[in-house]
């Protein structure tokens, strides 16, 4: 073998190879989170919308993938100013295959393509979050149009916090102390939740969600096993989300990403336990969907903190998140907002909690290893990092909520964003897509049309020109009788 090893098998190239393996694989895990969202959301909504809700995840990820290639990646990570990237649009073969070169020199140990891939799946996750709160009543075109626009809003924010040129990254307003958001509690989750909130407010609640006396009604989802599958897929994918955010195999130390994976897992576990027992105590029943929300809220919270905190802090972050998920869902509903999946509490409140938790619990040594911000309150006694985190939340909150709200408001005025009442009652599967998600529950015998003369066939693209046969005889034509 050794004779085959070319001169280019240097340690530098091996480092690129290992880092690229790591980043591509973790990107792929994050991409799979779309299946998690699809099944979590489909499971927690009604049967009549199941195909639509699951299917829209494919649609929005497709949209995000193209928009992000065209301009999003450049806005977010291309070289530029404090507020926006100004290079790297429609990246070419060269920009994507070279390592550590402008306009994507930030990615110093992986090719630009690996950077694109890792970052686009994050944009896709943020976009997936948006629709949780808008489920079961938004028009289909809204997914397309707002999907494009939100991808751009998102890219700007991620430039601020994650690009080396971004003002929150640099700590331009905070004496050089940068914001800590390891994998995006703020960038990805909180942002998604802000748009989700804007959407839920502008859409209004689903028909029947609030009674004639204004009190909230339960609208149970249709498939708890789907929600469980979705949650486990998301947990699985989060092992790409957080640990992959090292963007190399040596950021924080060789193999440090394993530590990030560990805090992630511990927090998620604590979140599940927290949600489970909070529900059991507060609601008298250990509601499975609340336990799942607890897991997800904890994963959201540890996202910012996973590289910065000690295991014990991961446990605290997780437990508190489990609590937040449960009471947050109840509180959001109590103020009259209809959020079918709980995106506002799980991704929004818990995203805020996780971002602030860095300011509380960041281990000084880890912050310094990662060269991002400084130690948190409990170690340093200083409120500095907490203030930076708070500032980031406030600014992102203002930016993303405002832009999302305005865009959706304009769309509402111009074209409407909510389906007609009868379509909502009938369900979006059949009204938007022409077919039930579970046809056999509504059409007694699918394909039971085959024996007549198609009086029910309104038209058909193409038709088959076979001759007429005796009525009621099943037809099996053409069979090659070889």
């Amino acid at each position, binding site marked *: 073998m050794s004779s085959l090893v070319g001169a280019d098998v240097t340690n530098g190239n091996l480092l690129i190879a290992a880092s690229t393996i790591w980043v591509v694989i973790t990107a792929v895990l994050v991409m799979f989170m779309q299946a998690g969202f699809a099944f979590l959301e489909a499971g927690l909504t009604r049967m009549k919308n199941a195909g639509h809700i699951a299917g829209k995840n494919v649609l929005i990820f497709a949209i995000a993938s193209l928009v992000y290639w065209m301009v999003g990646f450049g806005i977010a990570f291309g070289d530029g100013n404090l507020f926006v990237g100004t290079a790297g649009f429609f990246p070419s073969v060269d920009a994507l295959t070279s390592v550590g070169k402008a306009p994507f020199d930030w990615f110093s140990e992986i090719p630009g393509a690996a950077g694109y891939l890792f970052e686009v799946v994050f944009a896709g996750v943020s976009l997936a979050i948006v629709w949780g709160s808008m489920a079961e009543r938004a028009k289909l075109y809204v997914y397309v149009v707002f999907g494009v626009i939100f991808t751009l809003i998102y890219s700007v924010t991620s430039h601020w916090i994650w690009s080396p040129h971004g003002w929150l990254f640099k700590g331009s307003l905070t004496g050089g102390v940068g914001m800590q958001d390891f994998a995006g509690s703020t960038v990805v989750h909180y942002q998604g939740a802000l748009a989700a909130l804007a959407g839920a407010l502008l859409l209004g609640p689903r028909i*029947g969600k609030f009674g004639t006396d204004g009190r909230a009604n339960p609208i149970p989802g249709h498939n708890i096993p789907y929600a469980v599958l979705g949650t486990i897929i998301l947990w699985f994918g989060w092992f790409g989300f957080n640990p992959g955010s090292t963007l190399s195999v040596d950021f924080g130390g060789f193999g440090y990403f394993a530590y990030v994976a560990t805090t992630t897992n511990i927090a998620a576990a604590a979140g599940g336990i927290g949600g489970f027992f909070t529900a059991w105590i507060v609601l008298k029943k250990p509601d499975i969907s609340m336990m799942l929300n607890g897991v997800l809220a904890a994963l959201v919270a540890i996202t910012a903190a996973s590289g910065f905190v000690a295991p014990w802090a991961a446990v605290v972050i997780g437990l508190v998140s489990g609590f937040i998920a449960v009471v947050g869902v109840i509180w959001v509903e109590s103020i009259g907002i209809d959020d079918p999946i709980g995106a506002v509490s799980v991704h929004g409140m818990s995203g805020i909690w996780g971002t602030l938790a860095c300011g509380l619990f960041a281990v000084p040594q880890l912050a310094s290893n990662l060269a991002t911000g400084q130690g948190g309150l409990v170690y340093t006694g200083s409120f500095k990092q907490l203030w930076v985190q708070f500032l980031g939340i406030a600014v992102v909150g203002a930016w993303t909520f405002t832009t999302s709200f305005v865009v959706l408001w304009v769309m509402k005025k111009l074209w409407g964003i909510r389906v007609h009442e*009868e379509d909502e*009652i*009938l369900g979006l599967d*059949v009204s938007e*897509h*022409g*077919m039930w998600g579970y*046809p056999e529950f*509504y*059409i*007694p015998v699918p394909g039971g*049309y085959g024996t007549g003369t*198609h009086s*029910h*066939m*309104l*038209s*058909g*693209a*193409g038709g088959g020109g076979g001759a007429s046969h005796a009525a009621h005889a099943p037809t099996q034509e053409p069979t090659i009788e070889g």
Partner: protein
Amino acid sequence: MVKVEAVVIRERIEIVIDAVEEATGHVGVTVIEAVGHGRQRGLTHEYRGRVFESRFLPKAMLIFLVKDEIADGVVAAIRDSARSGHVSGDGLVWTSPVGTVIHNRTGSKLEEVEPGV
């Protein structure tokens, strides 16, 4: 007793049952999922290139076994509460004669079983 059967749109199930109880005090119903076809146009479907109409729409069938004297009141309550205000599809209500109705748990006639038993 009389059997009152009704076909209604599914979203009206709860409202109809409430209306019957309110109007007549009757408690006791069996609900069956159904699909129906009537004057109301079915749905235009599209599946993988075929555009077709399914005549069937989701409905529910409600069965109430009620005392003779309240039968008319039950029918009226259903008729009125089943009306959705939409253009079509609100279904039907009708009565049928029945022989003795037996309450399995006690073995007595249903009309003799006290509500609280």
